[in-house]
């Protein structure tokens, strides 16, 4: 299906250096330590904090319906969601899409999540309790539940994403977008758009907003693994706006190496879902090029980072 590719069990380090691939050790030792001051991670690790920042910058975010902080709140779930049919339940500090429940509809008492079987009341409550007790947060710290608006895929991307929602990951160095990819759920990813959960990543041409080949399970591919459709040449809508939003966000949080995840709403334009201060490296495979040269430039010109201007808004939670 995916064009005949040579059997290739590995590449030599020399070949990866030639391609300018940024490895994980180099990212951790040089990039994260020099471009991302530790205290600032709190701004992006907590989705509610990220939302606050976005609101202050005039960046669109999904509307928050409710935040559950304590176990008794779980019993009032019905009141929180009212008669809404579609919404998203997510842990405030979850990482990698864990614990996220995208509810597409309701059937009496039951919820119908995307990419999974329907869940009864009791099951949903247990899921909420798991989130509160920190099952999905880093280091198992107690967490909060965010219930928020579900943003639908842009019609132009619906063909590609199927029933799931495709989002756009933009990686920025010192506030400049340097690489981007569309993240598309596949059959195996259970409606989620996270690459290590089998989602598909599609590289983007930054200048034109056109797609080119993709990455799936760490392999460079040229057609969709489920549908067999070609992955290049598609134009992503509101491209320049998306880049501008990501750059505005990144330069304001002052994390020098940042991934911003956003969705493109047909009516509203780019809507920021979350940001990631330790963005993954598979985006390089999707784009068929390495990040190393950009990283070296950024490190060469990096001033000691100034923290975001204190507008009270940026309080760490």
């Amino acid at each position, binding site marked *: 299906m995916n064009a005949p*590719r040579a059997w*290739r*069990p*590995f*590449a*030599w*380090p*020399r*070949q*990866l*250096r*030639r*391609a*300018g*691939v940024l*490895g*994980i*050790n*180099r990212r951790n*030792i*040089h990039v994260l330590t020099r471009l991302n001051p530790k205290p600032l991670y709190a701004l992006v690790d907590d989705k509610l904090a990220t939302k606050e920042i976005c609101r202050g910058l005039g960046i669109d975010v999904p509307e928050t319906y409710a935040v559950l902080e304590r176990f008794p709140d779980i019993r009032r779930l019905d009141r929180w969601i009212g008669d809404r049919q579609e919404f998203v339940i997510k842990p405030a500090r979850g990482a*990698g899409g*864990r614990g996220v429940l995208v509810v597409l509809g309701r059937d009496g008492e039951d919820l119908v999540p995307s990419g999974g079987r329907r869940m009864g009341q*009791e*099951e949903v409550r*247990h899921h909420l*309790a*798991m989130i509160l*007790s*920190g*099952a*999905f947060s880093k280091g*198992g710290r107690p967490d909060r539940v965010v219930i928020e608006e579900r943003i639908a895929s842009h019609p132009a991307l619906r063909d590609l994403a199927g029933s799931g929602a495709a989002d756009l990951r933009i990686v920025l160095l010192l506030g400049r977008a340097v690489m981007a990819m569309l993240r598309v759920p596949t059959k195996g990813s259970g409606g989620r758009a996270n690459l290590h*959960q089998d989602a598909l990543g599609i590289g983007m041409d930054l200048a034109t907003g056109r797609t080119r080949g993709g990455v799936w399970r*760490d*392999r*460079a591919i040229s057609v969709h693994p489920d549908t067999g459709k070609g992955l290049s040449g598609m134009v992503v809508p509101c491209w320049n706006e998306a880049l501008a939003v990501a750059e505005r966000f990144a330069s304001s949080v002052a994390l020098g190496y940042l991934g911003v995840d956003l969705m493109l709403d047909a009516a509203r334009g780019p809507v920021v879902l979350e940001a990631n201060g330790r963005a993954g490296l*598979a985006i*390089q*495979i999707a784009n*068929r*090029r*390495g990040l190393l*040269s950009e990283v*070296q430039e950024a*490190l060469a010109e990096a001033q000691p980072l100034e923290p975001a201007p204190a507008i009270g808004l940026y309080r760490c939670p």
Partner: protein
Amino acid sequence: MGRPRTIPLTVVILALAGILCIVWRLATGMAGASPRMNGPWTDILDLTRLPRQTQEVLAVLLILPLGAVLTSLVRNVVGFQTFGTLMPNLLALSFLETDWATAAGVFAVVMLVGLGGRAVVGRLRLLIGPRLGLVLTATVLCLVVAISLADHLGLAMRTTSILLPMVVLTILVERFYISIEENGLGQSLKSLATTLAVSLACLALLQWAAMGRLAVRFPEGELFVAIGLILIGRYDGYRLTELRRFRDLGKDGEEPT
């Protein structure tokens, strides 16, 4: 990419100190041979004067950092994940006092009850803390029954030797569970296998008698271990697993400037 100047400086100082120690030890004939330095304080540095049993304990302690080197190599240079950097070492240490049959038995019980218990306890929809406690309880029950049964059948068993392995294994099972929630079953099994393999290697190191004698004779060898750890900690090249992960990006031709 600029590497802080303190790194080479530290490495050089540590290496010089280590070499100096060894030279001094050889020159004064202190390396275990009989004519000893009889200075009032210098004999502190001579571990071979200590009773045999103390020496054996010290040998184990002195080799532990080597296990840390091994684990860091596997994590940062090879690229396989283990549950914690010190876990393989701790596991090896806990099994050191136990004979192979007991070790395998305890391991089998804890893993089977732990893994099987997860499936059953998972249905109860408990929060993580109590859930782990419940698994621990089930493990304890099984072990107690097994020990009592062994005694009934007239099999002798050194029961004190299972306490430490039991504790460490329970921690391992807990890490494993949390990892299943966080990274999925496949990745977690891989990490578990890596952790066990590395701790077997650590165990082999700890039981290596010649290495133990060498470590007691030249404890300044730790300085070189420290150098190794610093160098691994600053290794910014590709991990072995990345040579595979990024294989589709590999390029022939000129290196970009």
